[in-house]
C-alpha cells in the first residue's frame, strides 16, 4: 500500500491527514495524483508540490513502489 500524507490547508480540505492507496504495478506519481485529484478536487486545487519518501519530487513520471510515502503539498508558509 502507498501511504499518502496531507498537511495544513490540504489536509483540512481532504478531511484527513493520511490515506492508504492500493499500489498498482507501473504506478507513477502522476497516476496517484490524478486518482486522488478526482476524489478531492478542492484540496488538489491548492497542491503545487509533491514529496516522495521525504524528498521533494518535481518529476511527476517518477515510479512509485508498494512502500512509497507520498505527500501532496500546498505552498509553504513557515518562517
Amino acid at each position, binding site marked *: 500500500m502507498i501511504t499518502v*500524507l496531507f*498537511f*495544513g*490547508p490540504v*489536509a*483540512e480540505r481532504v478531511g484527513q491527514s493520511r490515506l492508504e492507496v492500493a499500489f498498482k504495478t507501473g504506478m507513477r506519481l502522476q497516476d496517484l495524483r490524478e486518482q486522488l485529484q478526482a476524489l478531492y478536487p478542492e484540496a488538489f486545487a491548492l497542491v503545487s508540490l509533491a*514529496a516522495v519518501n*521525504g*524528498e*521533494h519530487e518535481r518529476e511527476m513520471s517518477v515510479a512509485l513502489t508498494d512502500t512509497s*510515502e507520498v*505527500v501532496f*503539498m*500546498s*505552498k*509553504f*508558509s*513557515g*518562517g
Partner: protein
Amino acid sequence: MKNSMEKSIKEAVRIQRDDFSQDEEIRALQACSKRMGGIATFLGCARDFSEGREVSEISFDAYDRMALPEMQKLREQAITRFGLLDARIVHRLGVVNAGDNIVFIATGAEHRAPALEACRWIIDELKEWVPIWKKETTPQGESWVTPHP
C-alpha cells in the same frame, strides 16, 4: 566537565515547541571560531495583525520527516555558498501567541557581507522549501496563511 558542557550545546538546526534564546544561539555560533568578524541574525515573530484582521495566535503544521532535513540542507548549502564559519536555524511549531518568536537564523563569517547575504538567503529559501504551514486565529475564525514575499 568538558563532556557535560559539550552536551549542553544544542544542535545547530532544530524544530521545537518551546521558545529559544537568541543570546544562547549567538553564543553557540561565536564559540565555533574566533575568526568570526560578522554575525547576522533574522528573527521572525508572530504579528497581531494580518490581511486587515487581528491575529491572536498562530499554529503550525509540519511534515516532520522532511522539514528538519531540509533545514539542515539549507544550513550546509549556506555555509558552502557564502563561505560561512557557521550558521544556526531554529523554528518553532505548535501554537504561538501574537508577539512571540517563530524562527531564528544566525550566520557567522569573517566579514559582514557574507553573513548578511547568507541570513537573507536562508530565510527566503526556508519559506520556499521547508514544509511548514501556519494558520492564524482571528475573531473571524481560523485561516491558513498564503505565502507572500
